[in-house]
């Protein structure tokens, strides 16, 4: 799990790893962090998920070793 921008400030670190049942969707991972950091839920509608450095649907099933991030609206340039 990787966190960037304001999400990194909310959860307090940039990287984490989590054990989930094989095939659990990205949404379940978000719920996992939402339980310990309720402030995350406020941003849910503006976030997109990524799996292995590609944008991914929240329903995407996860497997061991996957790299996941919840990405805030991007503001490069």
């Amino acid at each position, binding site marked *: 799990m990787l966190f960037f921008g304001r999400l990194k400030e909310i959860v307090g670190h940039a990287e984490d790893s989590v054990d989930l049942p094989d095939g659990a969707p990205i949404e379940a991972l978000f719920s996992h962090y939402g339980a310990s950091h309720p402030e995350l839920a406020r941003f849910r509608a503006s976030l997109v998920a990524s799996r292995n450095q590609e944008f991914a649907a929240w329903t995407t099933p996860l497997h061991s070793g996957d*790299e996941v991030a919840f990405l805030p*609206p991007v503001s490069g340039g």
Partner: protein
Amino acid sequence: MTDSIQPDLLALVRDPIDQDALIQHVRAQEDGAVVTFDGCVRNHSQGRRTLYLDYEAYESMALGKIREIAEQIHEKFPVHLLAIAHRLGRLEIGETSVFIAVSSAHRPAAFEACRFAIDTLKRTVPIWKKEYFEDGAVWADGEIPPAPLETQTAKPAS
């Protein structure tokens, strides 16, 4: 003319961007035009005076997305070469945060490709900026990248 090799220069950097080096990289004798975009740090944002900016990126993914932009440009526009550099870390007012150079035989393709590059970068590349003001700091309003709504065919972790 080669279409098998595209030695575009695509980079995330922490030091000041060497604009001349990027221009020289794309510029060749077969080109009739080089169009550049210089994205610079503005001293105000939504009516407040900005002191400096701090950029961070999901670096591996950001570079991958910049490479995708380059691939799309070569498919869409008859351009020769591209250089795209985005700077990360603390940037002062007036410094260049992103620089794009595009060369082509004729100017329309270079203009259109340069515009496409910056517009797509701002919408799809995972880079974030924090704006520092005299009375605090905020993460800049950004754009929500287009992401699939349905599960895609799973690729194994690499």
